[in-house]
């Protein structure tokens, strides 16, 4: 009988190693996709009938630290039935994410003749670094004018990409007799940005118009940044009217650079700092002392502008998707001008919530470009927190018959801090969010209440780095609380 020889089969162990490795990596991926902790939300009715929750559909979304950049947890409460699921975070829209304004006091167009009497002096500027620095020589020009032009340049960005800018002439300001403006002109070859038209840097417009009764300037509205809208409050004598504007023509940096040099500095042409460029369309005029409370995007692309008049009444302007003014009306809501009001988070895309200083909570529903319904809950103690825009919310149900309020339920946690060298530091107390307290109101009476507990602190705290204020790091930072958002479908 031939002797059996043991055959080496390295295939087998190699394939086993490959299979095991792939299985582990697949398990990690599946674990990350499906292993998310359930039970992050607990909906517990504490009072009232289940029927009271009919007609309310509510979402609570949590950006837990472990879901950063990935899907988020969403709790859906419909007719009193709750369910947790995971959804992809909505992609950020291509809106105007950011806008900035630059206020300047410049030489008015009709005072350009002053350039002929400008006081000229030598100047120099050094730029560059690492042994490549270079000095440019040029001239500084100084004129004195008792009248300055208030100029506002607005910059709009889509995401982080600059979209364009617009310059407005907000009118002339009377200044002191010896208010100086300086302009610079450098030798050829110097960067263009070093040359500058006349600009007043000795005074700010706020100082100059401090004695005026109303505010002047431009107010950028952050409520709907999908359109470049702003409120302009010009000085008397400006070609603009006070009102809400939509920028219709924004110039890019290259287009601004290509504008004709309208100013003269030292007798030579120079791009003007006071000549307006771009174009803006007046959407609706506002009274000079009308304060803007908020601009809200509405379902269907419309917008609502809520303002307060000097007499204390609130006023509502409704715009269509193309910013066409559909209606404007003075609301039957008033409080003393200057009194505090808050805008609780609105729960529906067709509603606005407003809470007055006396605690009255108003919910306005808009349909078809008109105010369709309004509900008032008198004297509601809906707590407001200016550091936490999501602290309180309110909205009507589908039929508009019942009102739901939500506010954050919190408790304070105190913890010791100890520095790395074992020194005891003062204890820190932080507000820790437990979830939301929900209440349904009908006819001024609370008909149902519930607690929506959110158990994300453990995860979020685990996410924080803690080296210096170690124990502090276990407490949720204030911004974490803002991560919980409630909204209706």
């Amino acid at each position: 009988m031939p002797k059996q020889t043991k055959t080496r089969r390295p295939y087998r162990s190699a394939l086993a190693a490959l299979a095991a490795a792939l299985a582990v990596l697949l398990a990690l991926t599946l674990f990350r996709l499906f292993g998310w902790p359930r039970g992050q939300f607990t909906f517990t009715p504490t009072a009232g009938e289940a029927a009271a929750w009919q007609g309310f559909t509510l979402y609570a979304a949590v950006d837990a630290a472990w879901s950063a950049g990935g899907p988020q947890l969403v709790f859906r409460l419909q007719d009193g039935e709750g369910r947790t699921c995971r959804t992809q975070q909505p992609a950020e829209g291509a809106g105007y994410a950011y806008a900035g304004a630059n206020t300047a006091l410049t030489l008015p167009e009709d005072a350009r003749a002053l350039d002929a009497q400008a006081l000229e002096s030598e100047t120099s500027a050094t730029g560059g670094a690492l042994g490549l620095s270079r000095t440019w020589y040029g001239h500084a020009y100084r004129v004195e004018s008792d009248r300055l032009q208030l100029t506002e340049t607005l910059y709009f960005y889509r995401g982080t990409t600059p979209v364009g800018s617009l310059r407005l002439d907000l009118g002339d300001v009377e200044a002191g007799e010896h208010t100086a403006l300086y302009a610079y002109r450098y030798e050829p070859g110097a960067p263009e940005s070093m040359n500058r038209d006349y600009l007043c840097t000795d005074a700010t417009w706020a100082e100059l118009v401090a004695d005026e009764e109303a505010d002047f300037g431009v107010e950028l509205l952050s409520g709907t940044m999908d359109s470049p809208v702003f409120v302009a409050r010009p000085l008397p004598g400006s070609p603009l009217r006070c009102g809400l504007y939509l920028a219709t023509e924004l110039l890019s940096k290259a287009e601004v650079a290509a504008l004709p040099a309208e100013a003269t500095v030292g007798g030579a042409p120079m791009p003007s700092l006071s000549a307006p460029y771009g174009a803006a369309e007046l959407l609706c005029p506002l009274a000079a002392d009308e304060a803007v409370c908020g601009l809200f995007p509405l379902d269907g692309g419309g917008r609502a502008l809520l303002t307060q008049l000097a007499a204390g009444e609130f006023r509502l302007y409704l715009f269509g998707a193309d910013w066409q003014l559909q209606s404007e009306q003075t609301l039957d809501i008033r409080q003393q001008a200057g009194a505090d009001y808050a805008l609780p988070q609105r729960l529906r895309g067709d509603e606005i919530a407003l809470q007055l200083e006396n605690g009255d909570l108003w919910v306005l529903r808009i349909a078809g470009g008109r105010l369709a319904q309004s509900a008032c809950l008198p004297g509601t103690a809906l707590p407001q927190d200016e550091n936490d825009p999501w602290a309180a919310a309110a909205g009507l149900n589908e039929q508009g018959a019942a009102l739901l309020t939500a506010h954050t339920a919190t408790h304070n946690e105190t913890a010791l801090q100890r520095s790395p060298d074992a020194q005891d530091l003062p204890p820190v107390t932080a507000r820790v969010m437990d979830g939301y307290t929900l209440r349904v109101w009908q006819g001024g009476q609370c008909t149902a209440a519930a607690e929506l507990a959110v158990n994300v602190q453990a995860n979020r705290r685990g996410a924080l780095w803690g080296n210096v204020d170690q124990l502090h790091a276990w407490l949720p930072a204030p911004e974490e609380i803002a991560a919980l958002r409630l909204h209706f479908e």
Partner: protein
Amino acid sequence: MKRIAKLAAWHWAMARKPFLALCAVFAAQQLALLLAGAALQQNIGHSCATLYAACWQTPAFLAGLAAALLVASAGLWRPGAARTGTALLTLPGPRWHLVAAQSALCALLALAFTAWQVVLYAAYYAPVTAVLAATAGSQLAAPAATVYCAQMTVTAAVQPAVPATTLYAQAALLPLFQVLAPAFPLGWAALAAGFVCVAVQSGCLFFHRGWGRAVSAALWLFTCGAALLAVYAAWGLHKYAIYAAALFAALAVLAAALAVQLAWTLLRLRRGSLL
């Protein structure tokens, strides 16, 4: 294909022992450092995921991965390699099969080492978390709290609770796992591109000798750096919409380095001037 698999399997047989030793050393150092780190007072407040970074385990993993790629060629660089090389060159069949087999083995060991890290993390989670909690509990026990409360006449309890956490949260929070199991297609693409390029580069490395190996090693290091950059840039592009240019640059470098290394190695193999 079968011949490539056979060659890879024989080289696996030669690389198996050093690879297992590497895995054992890596597991031991990780356990020792994580447990020691968890017991240190200065690490109170860390979770398992942040402690992993604080104990230098991310560079340790990368170093271990690089070692695994080098260990894959154990059959070519251990004593007697010259004889092995000669035997390899006398085998029938095209010589690019040698490179392909070696690259496949590098890919296998890289995958296995990564999987080993995943297993280790899951295994170490419980003991490390327990030690972290115990350290926090002992360091924050009554004395400091009492003394401080007496001074400040604070009546409220100041004993903080150690926050609860889950393996899921700690796995999802670990940047290494975010990169190794990305939740977005771009991450998978960058990971696959980097992985293939590094595996092939590593497969080519030990066919060279003398100065050729130095040049090859330089290309290999360059590729490893570019692969890291590509994976990181894909993550940054997904999370913060930045590093798009870095991603394309890294992928271009990866492709160029791969082309140079492959062409050069295959040319020299054909001439028989290697090994």
